[in-house]
């Protein structure tokens, strides 16, 4: 648990669990890549088979992620990236991240059923709401406009095959 008192990070001294887990996952990827090498057939007569490069890649992953792990354990913490819209004094807002991820999944699941534009409007409105847009109906309205414009310009005029869906099928028929 990360305890915050008056904006001072008391978590600094404790073990950085997230960082260690991520480095371990990268190490795991290296092991997965190395194990995968044994599943690749080497054709007879090839001087350099299809396994040479994967072995090299596994080695890079294994060595570098081990170096990161050792560094973290010795107290070399990562420098998180900075940005104009990021308030570094805030704790990570996992709920918002979960909402956004769920909205993207909903978008990709729905877009071939209800059509691209409605699914896109839902994604835009939902994400804006999750990020704290003041009026949810305004967010949805802007989403509808943006989605419609993209659908008409790219699917209607430029001919990309974005599904129109049952709601806008009549509009798609006009192009």
């Amino acid at each position: 648990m990360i305890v915050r008192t008056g904006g001072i990070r008391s978590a600094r001294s404790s073990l950085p669990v997230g960082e260690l887990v991520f480095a371990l996952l990268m190490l795991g990827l290296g092991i997965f890549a190395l194990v995968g090498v044994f599943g690749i057939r080497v054709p007879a007569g090839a001087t350099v088979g299809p396994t040479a490069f994967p072995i090299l890649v596994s080695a890079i992953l294994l060595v570098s992620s081990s170096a990161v792990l050792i560094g973290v354990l010795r107290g070399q913490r990562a420098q998180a990236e900075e940005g104009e819209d990021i308030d570094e004094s805030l704790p990570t807002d996992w709920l918002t991240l979960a909402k956004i991820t769920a909205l993207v999944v909903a978008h990709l699941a729905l877009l071939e059923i209800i059509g691209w534009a409605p699914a896109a409007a839902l994604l835009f409105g939902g994400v804006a709401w999750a990020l704290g847009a003041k009026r949810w109906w305004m967010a949805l309205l802007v989403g509808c406009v943006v989605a419609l414009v993209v659908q008409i310009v790219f699917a209607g005029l430029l001919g990309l095959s974005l599904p129109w869906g049952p709601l806008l099928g009549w509009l798609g028929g006009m192009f």
Partner: protein
Amino acid sequence: MDSWTLLMEGFATAIQPQYLVFAFLGVLLGTAVGVLPGIGPAMTVALLLPLTYTLEPAAALITFAGIYYGGMYGGSTTSILLNTPGESASIVTAIEGNKMAKLGRGAAALATAAIGSFIAGTIATLGLTLLAPVLARFAVNLGPADYVALIVIAFVTVGALLGSSVPRGMVSLGVGLFLGLIGTEVLSGQQRYTLGLLPLADGIDVVLVAVGLFAVGETLYVAARLRHGPIALIPVTRGWRSWMTREDWKRSWKPWLRGTAIGFPIGTIPAGGADVATFLSYAAERKLSRRKGEFGRGAIEGVAGPEAANNAAAAGVLVPLLTLGLPTTATAAIIITAFQSYGIQPGPQLFSSQPGLVWALVASLYIGNVILLVLNLPLVGIWVKLLQIPRPYLYAGILLFACFGAYAVNFSPVDILILLIIGVLGFFMRRYGYPVAPLVVGMILGPMGEAQLRRALQLSQGDLTTLVTHPFAAGAYAVLALLIGAGLWLKRRQRRYEQALTESIAVPLSADHEVGAR
């Protein structure tokens, strides 16, 4: 002389009205998206890539040239006008530009950045025109072993120099190489690392990785700690007509030229791209200035030099990209993808096989520079409006266009799922200090590296010494050792320098922080 006739033919193509419109649209879109806060040049190019899918190759490349220059330039407007204390220390230009704007000299800062970018961009494009054909002619004679050497150089410099820690950069590179392995292997026709999943059989599209890492990853990263409340913008007093005084011109022209001289060569070698160039230019200006006291408090030289260096480096990056097919930055890696989607493979043969296309592209770089200058100053009002977009809408829009771009690759919803997974990976990489650029470069160069390595060893019948005995390759590895040493030394200097700089200006900065907060 020959390349001049070809360049003139290129101009004849690029000056046609329909291509001028595409160049104009490219610059406008590139700048507009580049101005948006939180969007760097790599993300600008990745997000706008789907727009060019519907165009024919020449039009698409001309649009892309505009997007590239516009995106490179757009960021400076953001850092001059957006008042976010603390963050600016990471980009040296932002310190001076931001301070100038606070002193009511925002118009002068924007003007010196725009004119400096134009001059540097034009001179550097001239350098590209002169250097590229010579290099391409030389590169035709390079064998597979030499290419392996060049690709190893790109791997190591990009992995070690982009980012704050060498091991983390190499992890990022390794993940990129691994993603490049997924799919069907060309020679034996078998699948590698696809886990038997059908969508992975053709490999993961690079567009998904680039857009996922930059757009989705960045959106998630910002969403986790979004700065709420009103957006603090510094108003530009007096219109753009009041630009620069005579003294501003006098203080700017030398930094412009010096910035160009620093930026272009650094851009051509794989040494970390524009970041290193801007830092070096800033340090040089500070050292040469007779008013050192003004630095950190709004010195115009500190905007003029680094901005020129930034754009000169952008043109320099195109030299290895066009002549050798080697991307040295994440942005360049995405541009290569754009080329490949039209079946054009950048490399030494490009200048002889597609001269019309290449020279039209080079010509449109000159034209794009002019458009950039003409557009930027009068449109400051629009850029200010863009900066005021409420952040929930801005990031919702970025995410929507990212999903649109991913879907437009194959029109398959599975691609959006892959995009999301890569985005989550990008989020955690940012959070734990892994640079994302080496991943993109590794994914593009990995398959090229494997093909060249196998070809080289096939020729030598498995004799590994072939990789280092070719004179060019041997020389390249020697240069690599030098580059790494110099690059790491520079990085350390840069970090120490920025730290000292932040501390030296910390007093005024924390003072107005106190007033602003609480």
